[in-house]
C-alpha cells in the first residue's frame, strides 16, 4: 500500500472561508477527505480587514472540516489573493566561464539568482518564482540544462510578488487560530493545478477564478505560466450594483442574483417581471428581469474587460480558450459574456475528478482549495529525498536555531 500524506488547504475568500482536507498518495492520486466551509466575514476584495471576524469564521470552517474528515488539522497550505499581488516574467543570463564545458547546478543557481533580481518595490515579497524554461545558447524550452554543453544559460522566470505586510497579516491571522502555515500559495496558481490539464496548458489557456471579491487569473502558454494576477472586482460588485439599481438590501440582492439573475438580457421580453420577497416570504416589490440582467451583464463585462486588458497580448495564443471557475462561474450567462469579451472558447470548469465526494470537486467554488492539496503534493514530490538521519539532523538544526 502506498504511503499517503494528509494535507489541508485553506482559502480565505471574500464570500466564504473554505478548508479542504485531502489525502495525497505516492502514486499521485488525491482523495478529498472532507470540506469545511463557513460564510466569510471580515474579508474585503480577497484581503483580511478584520482579524477577529475572520478567525471566528475560520474556526467554524475548521471544526466542520475536522468533523467531516476525522483529521486533526494542525498545518495548512494557505491560499492568498488580493489586488496587491502582481506578476512579471524575467530572464537572467549567465555566461559560463571560458574553461568550463558543461552547465552545472551552480550555473543554474547563478542564472536563477540573476532572473530573480527584478525591480519590484522593496516592501514586496516573492510569493512564487516559477521556472518557465531555460534557454541554452539560444535554444528555448529546455527543461533540464544541467550537463549540457553551452556558453550561455538563460533562466526564464515567472515571478509573483505581493505586499509583504498584507500577506504576512494573513499568515498572522491563521497562526492565531492556532494553525501552522506550511506554505503560502497564490490562489489561481493552486486552482490551475486541478482545473487545467497538461494539454490545455500546452495549447494555451486562461483560467479565471471568479470569486466574490476578486477575479484571479493565470495564463499558460506552451505549458508555461506566462501571466497571472488579480482584478479586485468580483461577484460582490455585481450584487452591489443590483442593490443600488433596485434600491434593496445587499442580502436580498445577492439572493436575487443567485436565484434569478443572468447576464443574458437581450432576449428577455421587456415586460417580464420578477417578484421580490423579503426573508419572511412577503412580497416587497417587482423588478424588471431585463434590467436586472443588463445590470449584471454590464458589471460582468467590465470585470472581464479588466482581465482582458492585462492579458491582451497573449490572447491570440490561447488555443484551449478560457476556463471559468470560482463561485461566480455558476452565474447564468457568465460564459457567454466571457466568450463575447475574449472572443475565445469558454469552458466552465470545476476541479478535475479526484477521489471523494463528487459534489465537492465538481463545484467550481472548491477549485482553489482542492488545488492547494495538489500543489502541496507537487511541492512534496519535488523535495529532495532525505534519509531519516538527515531529517533528524535538519530537525535538530531547526531546534537549535
Amino acid at each position, binding site marked *: 500500500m502506498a504511503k499517503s500524506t494528509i494535507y489541508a488547504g485553506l482559502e480565505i475568500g471574500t464570500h466564504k472561508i473554505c478548508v479542504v482536507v485531502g489525502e495525497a498518495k505516492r502514486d499521485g492520486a488525491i482523495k478529498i477527505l472532507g470540506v469545511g466551509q463557513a460564510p466569510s466575514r471580515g474579508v474585503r476584495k480577497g484581503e483580511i480587514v478584520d482579524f477577529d471576524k475572520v478567525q471566528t469564521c475560520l474556526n467554524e470552517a475548521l471544526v466542520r472540516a475536522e468533523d467531516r474528515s476525522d483529521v486533526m488539522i494542525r498545518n495548512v497550505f494557505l491560499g492568498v489573493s488580493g489586488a496587491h499581488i502582481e506578476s512579471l516574467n524575467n530572464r537572467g543570463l549567465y555566461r559560463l566561464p571560458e574553461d568550463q564545458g558543461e552547465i552545472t547546478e551552480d550555473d543554474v543557481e547563478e542564472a536563477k539568482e540573476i532572473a530573480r533580481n527584478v525591480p519590484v518595490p522593496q516592501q514586496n515579497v516573492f510569493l512564487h518564482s516559477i521556472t518557465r524554461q531555460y534557454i541554452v545558447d539560444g535554444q528555448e524550452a529546455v527543461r533540464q540544462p544541467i550537463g549540457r554543453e553551452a556558453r550561455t544559460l538563460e533562466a526564464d522566470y515567472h515571478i509573483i510578488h505581493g505586499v509583504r505586510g498584507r500577506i*504576512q497579516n494573513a499568515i498572522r491571522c491563521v497562526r492565531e487560530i492556532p494553525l501552522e502555515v506550511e506554505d503560502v500559495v497564490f490562489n489561481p496558481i493552486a486552482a490551475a493545478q486541478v482545473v487545467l490539464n497538461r494539454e490545455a496548458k500546452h495549447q494555451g489557456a486562461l483560467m479565471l477564478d471568479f470569486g466574490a471579491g476578486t477575479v484571479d487569473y493565470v495564463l499558460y502558454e506552451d505549458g508555461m505560466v506566462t501571466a497571472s494576477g488579480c482584478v479586485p472586482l468580483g461577484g460582490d460588485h455585481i450584487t452591489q450594483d443590483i442593490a443600488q439599481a433596485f434600491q434593496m438590501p445587499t442580502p436580498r440582492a445577492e439572493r436575487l442574483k443567485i436565484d434569478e439573475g443572468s447576464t443574458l438580457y437581450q432576449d428577455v421580453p421587456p415586460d417580464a417581471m420578477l417578484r421580490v420577497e423579503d426573508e419572511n416570504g412577503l412580497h416587497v416589490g417587482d423588478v424588471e428581469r431585463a434590467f436586472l440582467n443588463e445590470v449584471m451583464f454590464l458589471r460582468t463585462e467590465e470585470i472581464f474587460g479588466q482581465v482582458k486588458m492585462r492579458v491582451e497580448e497573449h490572447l491570440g495564443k490561447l488555443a484551449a480558450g478560457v476556463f471559468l471557475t470560482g463561485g461566480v462561474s455558476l452565474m447564468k450567462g457568465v460564459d457567454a459574456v466571457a466568450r463575447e469579451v475574449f472572443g475565445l472558447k469558454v469552458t466552465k470548469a470545476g476541479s478535475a475528478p479526484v477521489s471523494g465526494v463528487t459534489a465537492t470537486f465538481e463545484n467550481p467554488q472548491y477549485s482553489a482549495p482542492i488545488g492547494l492539496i495538489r500543489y502541496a503534493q507537487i511541492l512534496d514530490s519535488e523535495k529532495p529525498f532525505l534519509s531519516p538521519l538527515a531529517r533528524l539532523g535538519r530537525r535538530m538544526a531547526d531546534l537549535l536555531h
Partner: protein
Amino acid sequence: MFGFFGIDNNKRRKKRRAKPANRKVSPERQPLDKKPVTPKLRKQQHEERRRKGLKWVVGMGIGMSLIGLGNTAVQETLFKNPRFALRQVHVQTEGMLSPAEIIHHTGLVTGVNLLTVNLHDVRARLEQQPAIKAATVQRDFDGRLSVGVLQRQPVAWVKCETQHYLPRSVGQGLLVDADGIAFPADTILPEFQTLPVIADEELKPILLGQKISTPRFDAAMQLLKLLKAREAHGPGRVTSITTPNKFALVAAFDQGAEVIFSHDDVEAQIQRYDHFLAEARAKGWEFTKLNLVASTNTPVVFKTDPAAEAPSAILVASPAATRKPAPKSGASKTSPRKSSRTSH
C-alpha cells in the same frame, strides 16, 4: 621610522591596506515569515507554557506520590514480609566441607529477605571455594533456601617441602582431585589418611582451585590413575609417587614394592607392567623393585630367592622374551645392575 607629521609610516601603510572592498549596499529583501509571532499568539504561547508547566508539576507530584506509594507497598508486602525471611538453609553435599561451613561460605544470615538474595552471587561465592566443584542454589518460598554442593573428591596428597605442602596435616596439607585441581585440606577425613602422596620438590607455589600443570606432575597423575585401576592385581595399594630425579617416577606400594617409571610414554610402560604382573601371578613371584625405565631388559629385585625354581631376574619387555636361568649369586637385595639379564 616616523614621517613628516610624526606618524609612523608603517601604520599609515597598514591603514591604507585596510580599505574596504566594494560591496552591494541594497538591503536584503526580507523573506516571508511563515511563523510570525503576534501579541495574541505570544499570549497563547505563554498560556500554553503555563498550562504545560502546571500539568508537568501536577504530573510530577502524582508520579512521585505513586512511586512512593508503590515503593511502600512493595516494601511492606514483599521485602519486609516475614513470610519471605530466610529461616533455614538446606545443604545437600558430601565431602570434606560440612554443611555449616558451606552455609558460612554462602554469606547468608537468618532473617534476610529471600527476595533480595541474589542466587547468582551466592552460587559464585560457593564456587570460589577451591574445595567446591559446582553448586546449585534454589529459593523455596517457605523461608528455605536449598543449596546443593558437589565437592571435589581428592585422589592424592601433594608433597613439596620447599613449598611447605605436607601430606596429612591440617593447614599445610594440599589435596588434588582427579582433574589435578589443588585444594587445601581444611579437615582430614579418615579416608584421606590412606590417599597416596605425590611428591615433587620442583613445584612452584600453587594457586588453590587451579590445576597443577607441570609435565612431571601430569605424568604422576596419569600414572596414579593407571596404577589405581590395577591395584587388585598388583603389589598392593599405591602409597606414594615420588620424583627422585628429572626422568623417573617411583611408585611405592603398601606391601613394600617399588616400581620405577620414566616420565615419557607411561602407557607403554604400563603395558610392560601388566605383562610382568601376569607373569608374576602365573609363576607366583613376589618382587620388591621393578624398573620399567629400561625398555627391553627389565631389572627386577625379587623378595625371596627364586634360585631353586626360577631365575632372579626375568625379561618382561616383550611377551616373546625367552627366559634364562639367573645367576646363583643373586640375593634378594641385589641392585638392578647386579641382577642377571636375558636378552633377545
